[in-house]
């Protein structure tokens, strides 16, 4: 049967949905032309609903997103032309619309938008910055001697106001991690205790705090990942005096500085070192407070038992892993890297991480992937081609692709369910409105 014939076929379709009552149509089968695409079916459903303002819908057949014509997808799925096709419809995700743009002074390396009150970014000038949800600079968190490679938000210590307080974790290229306790009162930002975590022997590339445990994990160029207690580390005030002392001594000899560094290391001993990777570890993500996943340049992603510090699993990937995110349920993994693909791996479907769903659209390295906090099927990714792409993992093509930055795009994250923020090497922090347009 040729394609033209397939398009001319009339297909019996039954529309179902999980939407509330006002969006429901009769489930009885109606005949529609097979050449109809998403837009045409959306018109049909809107006509059936009798709505005055049309709502765009997306359509799913057997859990596959309709992106070609109805007949082509039915043919691909091996559906009989005689049987009634059950089509589920969901409200379509509108294209991201540019909202606020703020100028950050340096390149933005990382973004965390998991706190409703503020967005935190890490910059190449060694500062972490807090921004209000509308893009106003709240405060700058200084301290790192070199660029901040990654930031993460952790819940505040017990006793603090859980709504308005937070702990910002910043990983820096000066081999340290810093935590800043931040309290927001109205538009004022109060800085609390600042702690320093030393131990890494190279640039710290990523940091992630665990949900529901006072732990966070970091990874570094020195081929290790480390797990720290948020309340551990040393106070930054002590550290300043120590630094003053070392700077005086540094003129003397190299050996003295070495001894000083060594003593500083011995003082910690609270972190858990996860050794096993053979190259730079680039990404960490928590599956649960007990299991940590890391992705590295050595083409593997590995799972670690945080209680024992042992490697649980190791899976080979097709290329170096630069970013990794575990979905909230902990069952699916999205990772990207130098192969320019967004890989979505479900261990329940294939045992090998090489045979995963490969979403191909970026024209540069994939710098960041994040699962949507509200929709279990949605992913946002950013790439060195300056694009931000929204994906539904039930389809193979991106839902939307926006050119967000002139140069490379290093970071993207959801802020709430309907906002995106992205940053890159043009030093701009951009906010985007997404959401099912109703």
């Amino acid at each position, binding site marked *: 049967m040729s394609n033209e014939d397939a398009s001319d076929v009339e297909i019996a379709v039954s529309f179902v949905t999980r939407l509330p009552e006002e969006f429901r149509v009769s489930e009885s089968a109606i005949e529609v032309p097979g050449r109809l695409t998403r837009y045409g079916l959306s018109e049909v459903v809107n006509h059936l609903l009798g709505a005055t303002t049309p709502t765009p819908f997306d359509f799913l057949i057997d859990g596959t997103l309709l992106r070609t014509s109805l007949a082509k997808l039915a043919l691909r799925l091996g559906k009989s032309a005689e049987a009634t096709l059950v089509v589920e419809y969901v409200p379509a995700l509108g294209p991201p619309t540019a909202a606020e743009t703020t100028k950050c002074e340096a390149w933005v390396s990382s973004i965390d938008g998991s706190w409703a009150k503020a967005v935190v970014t890490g910059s190449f000038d060694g500062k972490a910055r807090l921004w209000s949800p509308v893009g106003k600079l709240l405060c700058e968190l200084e301290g790192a001697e070199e660029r901040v490679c990654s930031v993460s938000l952790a819940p505040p210590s017990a006793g603090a106001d859980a709504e308005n307080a937070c702990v910002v974790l910043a990983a820096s290229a000066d081999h340290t991690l810093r935590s800043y306790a931040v309290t927001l009162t109205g538009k004022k930002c109060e800085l609390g205790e600042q702690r320093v975590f030393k131990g890494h022997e190279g640039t710290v590339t990523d940091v992630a705090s665990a949900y529901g445990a006072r732990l966070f994990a970091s990874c570094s160029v020195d081929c290790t990942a480390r797990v720290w207690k948020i309340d551990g580390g040393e106070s930054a005030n002590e550290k300043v005096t120590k630094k003053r002392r070392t700077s005086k001594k540094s003129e003397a000899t190299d050996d003295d500085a070495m001894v000083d560094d060594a003593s500083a290391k011995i003082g910690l001993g609270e972190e858990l070192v996860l050794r096993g990777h053979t190259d*730079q570890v680039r990404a960490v993500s928590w599956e649960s407070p007990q299991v940590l996943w890391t992705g590295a340049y050595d083409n593997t992603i590995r799972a670690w038992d945080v209680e024992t510090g042992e490697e649980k699993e190791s899976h080979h990937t097709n290329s170096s892993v630069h970013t990794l995110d575990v979905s909230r349920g902990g069952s699916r993994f999205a990772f990207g890297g130098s*192969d320019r693909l967004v890989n979505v791996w479900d261990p329940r479907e294939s045992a090998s991480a090489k045979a995963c769903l490969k979403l191909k659209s970026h024209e540069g390295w994939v710098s960041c992937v994040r699962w949507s906090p509200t929709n279990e099927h949605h992913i946002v990714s950013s790439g*060195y081609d300056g694009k931000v792409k929204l994906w539904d993992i039930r389809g193979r093509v991106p839902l939307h692709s926006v050119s967000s930055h002139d140069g490379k795009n290093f970071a993207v994250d959801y802020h709430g369910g309907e906002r995106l923020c992205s940053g890159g090497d043009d030093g701009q922090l951009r906010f985007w409105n997404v959401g099912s347009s109703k």
Partner: protein
Amino acid sequence: MFDDTINSTGDVPAAWYRDLSHVGYNLAGQRLQRNVGADALSKLLNDVDDRSSWRKLSDGLTGRDFKLSQSDIVLLRRMQAGRLLTDPLAHITGISQIMENVVSTTEPKRRFQPSKWEAKSVLRLVRALRQQPRRNVSAGENDIQHTRDIWLGVQHLVHNSSGSVRVPKPLPPGNHFSFNPPAEYVAYLGKSSDYAPKSLRQLHSYENFTRERFERCLDLYLCPRSNRVRVNMAPDEILPQLPSPKSLKPFPEILTQSYTISEKIMSMSVHSSGEWLACSTKTAKVFIFDIHTGCCLQKISFGIAPTAIRWHPVKPRILLLILGCCVLVTDAFSVFDASNVNFMETSELMSWIQLGVSTFIVRHTSIVKEIVWHEKGCYFATIFGTKSGVMIHNLDKQESQSPFVKHDAPILGTSFHPTKAFFFICSQKSVRMYNLKTQELEKKFSKGTAVNSCMCISSSGLSLFVGTRNGNLLWFDIGSSTHSKVISMRGAAIGSVICHEKYPLLATVAFDGDVNIFHISETSDFDSTTEPMIVPVNTIKSTRTEIVDCCRIQFHPCQPWLFLQRGKANIGLFSPM
């Protein structure tokens, strides 16, 4: 008399007569009746009784049955076995006895002498011939009427058993060569009967004589003297069977990152951790990039342009720079004030000057050209001066030594062996391998008249790759200097050849800007059965604007990525798809 059973239907399918009662016509034009045999049951019963029924066959052409005789059966069996149809030894009875006689008894003398009776019979024949009266010519013509020379006009060369070819015979002389032609021939030529030259000088010269002699000489000269065996081969069979590049992934394929500076790049180096890329520019600056993000982390200025820059292979932040006559060892991320040092000043002896905590200057006697690190980072070697001196420096002890005699030929490059105490010096004609312990020349690698331009040693230390001026790549086995291969590439002279430390990859860059990437598989000591193999997997072409100084390439130490200078002020990173 013809057999009246012959079917005259000719080359006609028997199926045409299938429904007819006859099967054709004989030569007399009468129908040949089909042999209507008994029915199948009676046939079966007959066959059960007749033991030789299997020999019975039916001739489809004549429609008759016939029976194979015993000799037919023998003949068929011989045909099936693929033997001769008649047994050549069948007429010899008692052959084994003869063989026994041959072997057991001594050879009689008569076997070695010419036969007396044959000689006698020949003599008798000769006498008979002589006594025979001369034959009549016409009778003789009748006799030879039916014989003719079948080889007439066939210019053939006769090969003897040893394969050599005999010289072709000249044509026998005809009547025109005759000094005294017969009378009838003279009459035929229309010459007078008194034409009878008495000496050779009186003969007319033959007009084609010189030409024929010349052609005869040419025949003798150009005649092939041996039988050459010509091998018919398709070109595909001669080429080695190479695996497809797709099965040899990963290798660098596409440009994914670029690091741009506004100034002309002199040298670049990738740190062994794969984190930083350092490059020096003509405007006396050193830029350090973060490879992952492409961010410029550090910018250092010097009074003089660093011609070469190398990261320490083990220590994280130590950088080695060539500044005029000096080699500077410094910490890349600590700012170092170099304004009060004169780098062009020479010293008679090598001198180490400490400038800071981990900052040294090694002052040479003349301008330094190239530096090479040892894998472990304790030693580095420098090439300096117009006379091409080579120095080996110990960084820990801060000592320098010159273990090798100065060479007149300019030195193109040096290298340490990755695992053993060997040192390689590449000059235009050869690559010399020295043993550092005994400080003696161990081996010399050269191939014909090839003019070397660059070299590198594979990370396993088994192979030495040399690029040549005529665009070839030479592959030497370091273990045995006799084993070598030439990989010919159509293109310009090779500017640089590099090997990957972790992946079996090799890259060459030619002066026309083409980068060829190869997959190499070397033989190890444990597995010497597999042939070493080199497979071209990718070519990166440069555009015309990028060709300027594009010979600087380097592999990423851990990833299958390639850094390539593209244009004056741009370094591109190529990574797999």
